[in-house]
């Protein structure tokens, strides 16, 4: 970073970069969107008579959203660097230092700041925001389903709430560990001064912000009435809100790819001297596996939505059987992303808990190699299982058996992760903290999520269970019961390093028990109604499902209270919490060797690593 002084441009007065921030971005985004909207309204030809879809409106909507996107990214300053390169120049040293955001106070959080610590905090902020919104929508869903006759939300709005809750939470859970902790902690943990591509890091964050607006915009032009999976041909007959979903996914997919390339490169190239692969902490493996898995998956997601946009706006028929396409094409493209994606969410969360396990049991991680084999095995297999989401779609009944094999094989590497965690707990000295209890909670929840996954992977059983509330409960057990549990533990664990203050102990415990108990109440109720035959994504149900749904709703409210307690804990602890010592958990990874506030490039002298981070335990046995 600091050495980028060649071909620097003279900066007379204030550089353009210093004038740009989130407000200029919002302003330019809105202006561009309005201009593109007026222009396309004036110049786009009318649809031919008899056109059944809203082709022209779709074109206008998509173009306006593209206008927003280009305007926002220009306004935030993402294009300054590339533009300079086009001119054969680069940012000056001063400009780079400005982008790094040193001594800039809170304002740097509203800018295209390249410091990985700032990006990490920005990610944390947006993750909390996404969970707040997605959780709020979940509460609307559960309130509506509290009683069979109590549905007070219009079906169209309800469907849109379900879809928006789904996609918000998917995005929120994808970024919840690799975003805040992968950006803030990971470079320090490997002893690097920053990410390999600091500007790409800023880009990946601001892309998520840019993406959020089309999604919200979509809520006002018909909503996402298709569920988060947006199956075609339902999506091609959906209202204009669908275009918001398409734009959202396209931009988010780019963000994920950019972040994936950046994190992978950083870990491969920038580990401290002496940090061989055997000495690299397991959390790093989890982060890399997650983003590396996203690298091939998300381009396919991007592609699936581009074709969807073509079908809607240009009258193509990629997903329309009558026109020579097929809805099954969409399902394949979607799930080729969709299954690796659940491990994109899960692996870093579990790896984070593996990182904490030795710290809170004061003994070495059990079977480091097996942990890596497990992560690698899951990552590899997860690319080969997508069609288990399509067992009963009729696409290829002959392939059900092979996909059943690959799916059930995943239980073996998953079992390895259990072995590592249980083996680490065994004969440890338990230090009772919220992160430690989260490991037990993960084992409990992920065991239930995993075993119900075996039922679902079995084709004949899936013929009964597919598309029922049982599936919904199953993936909440894995993504929330396991994934979110790991993310919340990470928050409490790394909170001292990120804010300089300890997370309030009492609040962390209260929130932990409320969330975990509420979660298990809610989703056991949901398993029951699924088994009794309640389909997913319904806004009304037969009276026989009353009890189970009421239990789920009560559990959901308990989770909400727990999450609000946690949110209060984040705010109050960050403002007035106990000042944290340098290494409050007496952990051995590198991030605990730097003082708070962490200097711009983390280390004065780059560390040299001579052992792995798990050298706990005394006597040689």
């Amino acid at each position, binding site marked *: 970073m600091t050495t980028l002084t060649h071909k620097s441009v003279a900066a007379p007065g204030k550089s353009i970069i210093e004038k740009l921030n989130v407000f200029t971005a919002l302003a330019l985004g809105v202006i561009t969107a309005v201009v593109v909207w007026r222009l396309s309204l004036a110049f786009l030809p009318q649809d031919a008579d008899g056109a059944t879809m809203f082709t022209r409106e779709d074109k206008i909507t998509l173009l306006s959203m593209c206008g927003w996107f280009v305007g926002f990214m220009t306004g935030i300053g993402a294009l300054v660097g590339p533009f300079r390169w086009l001119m054969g120049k680069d940012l000056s040293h001063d400009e780079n230092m400005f982008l790094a955001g040193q001594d800039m106070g809170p304002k740097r959080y509203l800018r295209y700041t390249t410091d990985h610590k700032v990006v990490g905090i920005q990610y944390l902020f947006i993750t909390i925001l996404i969970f707040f919104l997605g959780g709020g929508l979940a509460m609307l869903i559960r309130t509506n389903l509290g009683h069979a006759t109590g549905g007070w939300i219009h079906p169209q709005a309800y469907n849109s709430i379900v879809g928006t809750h789904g996609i918000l939470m998917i995005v929120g859970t994808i970024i919840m560990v690799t975003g805040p902790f992968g950006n803030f902690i990971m470079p320090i943990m490997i002893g690097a001064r920053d990410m390999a591509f600091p500007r790409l890091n800023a880009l990946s964050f601001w892309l998520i912000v840019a993406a959020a607006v089309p999604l919200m915009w979509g809520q006002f032009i018909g909503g996402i009435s298709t569920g988060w999976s947006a199956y075609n041909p339902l999506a091609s007959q959906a209202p204009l809100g669908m275009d918001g979903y398409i734009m959202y996914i396209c931009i988010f997919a780019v963000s994920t790819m950019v972040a994936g390339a950046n994190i992978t490169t950083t870990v491969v190239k920038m580990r401290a001297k002496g940090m061989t692969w055997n000495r690299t902490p397991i959390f790093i493996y989890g982060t890399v596996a997650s983003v590396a898995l996203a690298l091939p998956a998300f381009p396919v997601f991007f592609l699936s939505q581009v074709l969807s946009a073509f079908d809607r706006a240009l009258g193509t028929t990629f997903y329309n059987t009558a026109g020579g396409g097929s809805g099954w094409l969409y399902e394949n493209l979607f799930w080729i992303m969709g299954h690796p994606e659940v491990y994109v969410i899960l692996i870093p969360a579990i790896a984070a808990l593996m990182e904490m396990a030795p710290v809170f049991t004061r003994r070495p991680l059990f079977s480091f190699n097996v942990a890596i084999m497990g992560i690698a095995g899951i990552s590899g297999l997860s690319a080969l299982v997508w069609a288990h989401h399509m067992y009963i779609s009729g696409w290829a009944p002959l392939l059900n058996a092979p996909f059943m094999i690959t799916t059930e094989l995943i239980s073996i590497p998953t079992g390895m992760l259990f072995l590592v965690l249980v083996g680490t707990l065994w004969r440890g000295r338990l230090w009772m903290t919220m992160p430690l209890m989260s490991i037990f909670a993960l084992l409990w929840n992920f065991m239930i999520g995993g075993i119900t996954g075996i039922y679902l992977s079995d084709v004949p059983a899936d013929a009964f269970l597919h598309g029922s509330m049982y599936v919904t409960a199953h993936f909440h057990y894995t993504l929330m019961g396991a994934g979110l549990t790991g993310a919340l533990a990470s928050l409490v664990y790394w909170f001292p390093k990120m804010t300089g203050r300890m997370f309030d102990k009492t609040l962390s415990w209260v929130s932990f028990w409320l969330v975990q108990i509420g979660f298990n109440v809610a989703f056991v109720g949901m398993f029951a109604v699924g088994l009794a035959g309640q389909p997913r994504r319904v806004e009304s149900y*037969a009276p026989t499902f009353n009890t189970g749904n009421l239990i789920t709703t009560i559990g959901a409210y308990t989770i909400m209270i727990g999450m609000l307690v946690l949110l209060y804990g984040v705010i109050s602890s960050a403002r007035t919490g106990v000042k944290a010592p340098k290494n409050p958990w007496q952990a051995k990874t590198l991030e605990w060797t730097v003082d708070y506030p962490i200097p711009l490039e983390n280390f004065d002298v780059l560390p040299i690593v001579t052992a792995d981070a798990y050298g706990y335990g005394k006597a040689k*046995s």
Partner: protein
Amino acid sequence: MVEVITPQTPQWWKKPDVKKAAILWVICTAVIGFVGVEFHVRSMVRPASETMSGVINLMRIFTWAAAPVAGLVGAMCITVLTSKRHYGDNPPAEADHEIRNSPRATALWVVVSGILCLFALVTGMIVLQQDNKAVLDTQAIQVNVTGQQWVWNFDYANGARSQDLYLPVNKPVVFHITSKDVKHSFWIVQMGIKMDANPGYTTETAVTPDKIGVFDVRCAELCGLLHAYMQTKVHVVSQADYDAWLTAHAATEAGA
């Protein structure tokens, strides 16, 4: 199970925490297996076909197969949690060992999970194969199912058409399923069968109802505004009643 045998320490199975975990393992396995099976079987609808009975059986078998694994994890967690807990702001003393792995335990774990996985696969494959064969039965009653937003239509071989499904008891039926607009999913809840209705394609599934009664058909794939209300009934009746119903409706259809 992670202890290395050395002459100084007692043999690993004689250590108190191992004994405790072993006892807990038996208890946990029994509790998890029993509760798991009861939860599933009691929550599930009463079966109205052999397919559904088969599904319930599979759940029973899988739950019992998974119970020892879950039980072992549970037993070890309880053993750990009920000993050597440390509260406070500073870490406890470090553990009195630094065991980093146990090849034997790992090998055992992987082999056992491999065997369980194989067992689940074989069990599932056998049932899957039977289900696949049933679709080819040409002697079976053939019913065309058409989904459209937001009703089901059933067409019978003699030209009859209905929105409630009528089937004779104990006779195999093959459904040919398609859709007029978007994807739906044809689910006869109590018979344990489900197949998507895709526009432009025909998919098949088969079942033999074995109980007389009225059962539920629900759409299991989000299909738009009134997806939740896209349900109808299956009337499984005796052969004589079925024949009478079919003749009556074929006549109406022809007259219309």
